[in-house]
């Protein structure tokens, strides 16, 4: 038997995932029955029963999403503790790349959390309207979420089953370090142009969120998200680690760096989730998403401020930049 499966974190994580999937599967079956019989214009008893059942799906989804949000950091933390067992790994980066499932799993998780955020926001709008205007959309989206959750569970199991504790993995310096002069940055950027772009995109995002330009938000925010990711890994991270060669999105989640990574990544993801959900809602319903935009503006600003503060405090303390 694979000894990874006996690790406490892995057991707790996997069993929680399975239970959550199971309860979501119930909601899925209920949702199918609702979709099958739903006709809001009818006065039948059945329609009212379906409306009641819809509450079950909402309740289950809310419950599952809360725990999914808790389980992502728990997952990352668990992976991080496995570094003692998986040879060669110094942080979660090595463990996640122990097989080809890891990275896919992590990306899917991030997408699913976005899906949950979007669903909850659509649902809130739908319930506050008087005739379920988004019912079909949100129901199909619910089914999509269930499919995603199923794939996720499959990847979960595949991933943990296929971590071979006898095969050494690369550590983050090998995964993220510059390999023989190859430029890891996207779009042929160098560090300076990337930083410039980072701050320009931040200002632009603020402007777009402030003026509720939904289409532009859908284009610019993902770009800003990507640039933010690279900026944190290849620039801001080096100031967190205070080592110009240390480039890793995971090490900053460790105790040595006061778990600052959790704040950085959650503020970034939260801001992206809320702004994109707001934009999609605005486009679908022509309603205004000011409130959501305001929240994402706050989170983006928190994110940029924390990153920038690392540079500033380093400069003040040592008088130079890395």
């Amino acid at each position, binding site marked *: 038997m694979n*000894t990874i*499966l*006996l*690790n*406490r*974190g892995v*057991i*707790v*994580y996997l*069993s*929680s995932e399975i*239970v*959550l999937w*199971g*309860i979501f599967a*119930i909601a899925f079956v209920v949702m199918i029955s609702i979709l099958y019989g739903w006709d809001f214009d009818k006065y039948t008893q059945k329609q009212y029963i379906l409306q*009641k059942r819809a*509450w*079950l799906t909402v*309740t*289950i989804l809310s*419950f599952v999403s809360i*725990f999914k949000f*808790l*389980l992502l950091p*728990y997952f990352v*933390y*668990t992976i991080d*503790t496995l570094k*003692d*067992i998986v*040879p*060669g790994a*110094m942080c979660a980066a090595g463990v996640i790349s122990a097989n080809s499932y890891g990275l896919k799993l992590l990306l899917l998780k991030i997408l699913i959390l976005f899906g949950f955020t979007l669903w909850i926001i659509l649902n809130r709008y739908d*319930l506050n309207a008087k005739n379920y205007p988004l019912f079909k959309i949100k129901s199909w989206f619910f089914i999509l979420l269930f499919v995603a959750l199923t794939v996720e569970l499959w990847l979960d199991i595949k991933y943990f089953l296929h971590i071979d*504790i006898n095969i*050494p993995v690369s*550590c983050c*310096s*090998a995964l993220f370090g510059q390999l023989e002069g190859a430029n890891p940055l996207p779009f042929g950027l160098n560090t300076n142009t990337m930083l410039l772009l980072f701050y320009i995109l931040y200002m632009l995002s603020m402007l777009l969120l402030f003026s509720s330009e939904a289409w532009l938000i859908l284009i610019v925010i993902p770009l800003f998200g990507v640039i933010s990711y690279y900026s944190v890994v290849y620039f801001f991270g080096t100031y967190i680690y205070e080592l110009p060669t240390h480039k890793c999105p995971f090490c900053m989640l460790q105790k040595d760096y006061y778990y600052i990574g959790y704040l950085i990544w959650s503020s970034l993801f939260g801001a992206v989730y809320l702004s994109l959900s707001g934009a999609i809602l605005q486009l679908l319903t022509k309603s205004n998403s000011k409130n959501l935009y305001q929240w994402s503006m706050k989170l983006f600003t928190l994110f940029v401020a924390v990153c920038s503060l690392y540079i500033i405090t380093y400069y003040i303390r040592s008088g130079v930049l890395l």
Partner: protein
Amino acid sequence: MQNRLFLNYLLISLLKERSRHIGVVLLSLLLIFLLSSVLFISTSIQTTIQNAIKSEPDFVIQRVKGGLMVPLPLSWIDDIEDIRGISTIQPRVWGRYTTASSEPETMLIVGIDPLDPQSNRAFSKIMNQTDIKSFLDGNNMIVGSDIAKWMDMHYAKKSYRFLSLGGEFISVNRFATLPKSSNLISGDMVIVPLELAQKILNYDTQNVTDIILNVPNHAEWSNLKSKLEELHYDIRVVSKQDSIKAYKQMFDYKGGFFLALFMIVLLAFAMILYQRYTQVLSTEKKQIGILRALGWSVQDVLRLKMYETVIVIIFSYILAVTLAYIYVFIAHAPLLQQIFLGTDGYSGNTEWIPVINLPTLMSILLLYAVPYFSAVIIPVWRIAVTDPKEAML
């Protein structure tokens, strides 16, 4: 928070109908208490061992002949020094010494060179507290607490005469005693200067027991290991990572087994919860119907019942975890200690280092709250969609 009237109502109805929740709370308390006690103990042991291992050197070089460890020549150090990336290299002399008496006592003789920087972090702490000059001045030793007790009983309050493995008597002064609290260093240890250790253990002056290395760049570890192994055919390289891994696996194995068993208990717990909630909530049907008739929506009732559940969960969780903390770290876990540790290797009054970390707390919460919510979500929904017409009947 939603609003104060809502919270008010929530608390009043929880308090007035607390008898309904007592059964569930007691059961939860028992469950979380057991779970957290076990997890606290295992986390504590794991941390102790990991700390002990962390103060060990990164690599230990040994020489093996026919499967047995034999002394190795100091000349090996020169070969090793050529490899890049090594920060400290230090020869060590150590071995077991058994006294010749009717009740033989075994001690661990450890020779160190106090002038060298100590690669073992625990030792460097001891050396910092020692007056090195007078320690080196003559045959002196620092003894562990168990040995100190033994020597006191055997009329060796000032010095002890060792009969070296070569057959000659060596008298060694007791220079200091290690404090009992230093968990990381065993009580049967005797620390002496390197040359003295070689004499007691009857080593050739050019031979040592093993060589220890520290390699600051952890990324180089696996690379370095293979380089070292190529040096001599009879070399054995033990890396710290290997021992951490071995310990971790051992603990994962024990803990995993417990957790797997615990899952079955949790399943039973969830089933009881489901029944209990279905039963209790069905008696509230009229009451919920009235609330619905008075303008409460399904969402409001769902929120009420979910908050009620959350309060019960958090209350039991905090209480049980606190009790478990007191039980394990203040009362030293009577009963559970024997079950958990058996008798192998640990003496009766083990003191756990209080280790409480967020992941452990989070694990307990997940193991408890996920099945709890999953079990009650359908009964809660069922009651929340009560027809307001119920109030008219």
